[in-house]
């Protein structure tokens, strides 16, 4: 009797120890990956089984940077999409010709400019802390229809929103990443806050009658930097340019696919529906198609080359081979590197390499009376869409 009790107790205690070790292992499984700063992890599994996980960190210049972003379609394999992604510069040009500001390198989206988020700004979500302050919100929201086909086939989905806010000279930037259940990534910068800059010529701004001043118009160039590391090998990504070119009689469109061999600066051409996708050289879906993400641009109406003749404003996108010192799209300070993204494009091979996709997203603001004050949020966004990530719709 005594022995059996002791044996049982010993067995129970052994289980406790094993459970404790297991708990340690499970609770820290993600943080222990050396890809994340300790504790800076976000993961979400939707009811369908689709899931996202990623790391985050705050840098003085870029603010919140995401890394090691993985997507797992429902009932499918979890795979990496992005090695790192963030804003690499915001250039503000004023309509009256005042000096350009480079917000990421001259002021920084992180540090004291990164705003503390109140719980009310993250309702239903979870706030994440950096240097003792709540600066990042993670929240899951309903996202409407994923698909619908008559009344018998329909599904509504959810998304994971991850956002922060930075205040620079009274203007405020909400930087938001949305990770949808179907694998889509929406990237958005929301401009709000106060527009304090004034000018003397109404041709360069808008008369704000209640404040008896002319608010200056301005253009923000958001330079997003996406280091794609699709699947487990980050050195074998391929960029393809795909166009659907109208025939002379404009009755048909012919698809033209081209692998980008060397670093490239280019722009969108809505007439032939040009876009780019980043695909893995070896990993395929169950139908033997290379898994990839395509860049979906939604900003044709706002894209412009800016006021100056700067080389880095001449193109919408830049595709480069990964180089750790190529960090800021403009005012890049590091040695042995170009000073801006146009100089990063210097002929390196990007066919089956570790590639970085830079996107210049443009937004012109001509202030309105309603913007005073504060200004309503103006969103500028684009999408990264899975293409052939799965062989069929997994939801």
């Amino acid at each position, binding site marked *: 009797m005594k022995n059996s009790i*002791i044996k049982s107790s010993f067995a129970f205690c052994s289980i406790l120890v094993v*459970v*404790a070790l297991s708990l340690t292992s499970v609770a820290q499984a993600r943080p222990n990956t050396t890809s994340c*700063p300790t504790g800076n992890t976000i993961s979400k599994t939707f009811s369908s089984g689709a899931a996202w996980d990623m790391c985050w960190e705050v840098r003085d210049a870029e603010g919140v940077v995401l890394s090691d972003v993985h997507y797992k379609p429902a009932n499918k394999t979890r795979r990496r999409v992005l090695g790192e992604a963030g804003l690499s510069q915001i250039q503000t040009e004023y309509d009256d010709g*005042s000096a350009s500001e480079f917000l990421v390198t001259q002021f920084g989206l992180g540090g004291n400019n990164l705003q503390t988020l109140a719980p009310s700004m993250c309702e239903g979500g979870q706030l994440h802390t950096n240097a003792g302050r709540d600066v990042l919100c993670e929240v899951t929201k309903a996202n409407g229809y994923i698909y619908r086909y008559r009344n018998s086939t329909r599904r509504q989905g959810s998304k994971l929103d991850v956002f922060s806010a930075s205040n620079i*000279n009274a203007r405020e930037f909400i930087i938001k990443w949305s990770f949808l259940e179907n694998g889509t990534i929406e990237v958005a910068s929301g401009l709000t806050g106060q527009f*304090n*800059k*004034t000018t003397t010529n109404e041709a360069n701004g808008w008369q704000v009658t209640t404040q008896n001043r002319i608010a200056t118009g301005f253009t923000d160039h958001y330079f997003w930097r996406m280091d794609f590391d699709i699947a487990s090998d980050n050195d074998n990504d391929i960029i393809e340019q795909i166009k659907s070119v109208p025939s002379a009689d404009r009755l048909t469109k012919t698809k033209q696919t081209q692998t980008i061999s060397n670093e490239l600066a280019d722009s969108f051409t809505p007439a032939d529906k040009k876009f780019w996708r980043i695909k893995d050289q070896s990993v395929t879906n169950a139908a033997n198609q290379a898994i990839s993400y395509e860049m979906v641009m939604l900003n044709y109406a706002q894209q412009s080359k800016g006021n100056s003749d700067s080389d880095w404003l001449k193109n919408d996108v830049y595709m480069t081979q990964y180089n750790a010192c190529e960090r800021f799209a403009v005012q890049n*300070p590091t040695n042995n590197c170009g000073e801006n993204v146009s100089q990063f494009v210097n002929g390196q091979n990007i066919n089956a390499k570790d590639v970085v996709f830079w996107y210049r997203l443009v937004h012109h603001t001509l202030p309105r009376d309603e913007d005073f004050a504060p200004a309503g949020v103006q969103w500028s966004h684009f999408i990264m869409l899975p293409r052939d990530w799965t062989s069929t719709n997994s939801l």
Partner: protein
Amino acid sequence: MIVKNSFSVSGLIVQSVSFAIALMTFTAYAQSPSHNMDPLSFDELSTASLLTAGPRLAARGVNTDVSSLTNNNREVLLIERNEEKGAPSDQRRADVFIYDYSRNELIQSLVDLNTSEVIRSERKQGVQLPLTDKELIRAKHIVFGDEEERAILEDEFRRITSRELSDIADLNIKAFTFHADSLPNRVNEASKQCGIHRCAQLMLYTQENVVFEISPIVNLSAGVVTQRIGF
């Protein structure tokens, strides 16, 4: 007897639970040393600063003694974790950026925090990182130490507030590095050096968030106000 045994068993369970908790704590502790993605600790920041800037400048990195900046002619601008894709998980490295005012050069050093060695150090001209708090304070002192400049700013304050500026502490001031090439054809001769020299453009605004329509440019390398531009 059974009671006694039960007590012993309970004790064993308590001990085991304690052991399990201790084991979890130990496991967590054993995993606590920083890996290459973790932010720099205060000690690591100090080490990086000492190795690259020397004890005097490193110590200044944590105070706001504006006068000492001009004595030493160097300013620690930024220390951050070095990003290196695929680096060993236990590698701890820092990038240190120091501005050398005497030569108007940015010194960028890569420091190995595991071995306390400077791996390499390079100089570059024309690259201007954000201003430190000390540089902002110094720029403010230069502007308001210039009698003509101060009078102009007091007039501007009076114009936009209908009040007298009794104390510059009543002003909010932000500043950013200024490059002459960001304002082509509008900079004067004195400001043309900005970019090679380290310059600050000041944005001044009242406690009520009314912005001054004039914005001084200060050449921190030369210690003078070079121009006022509209803001």
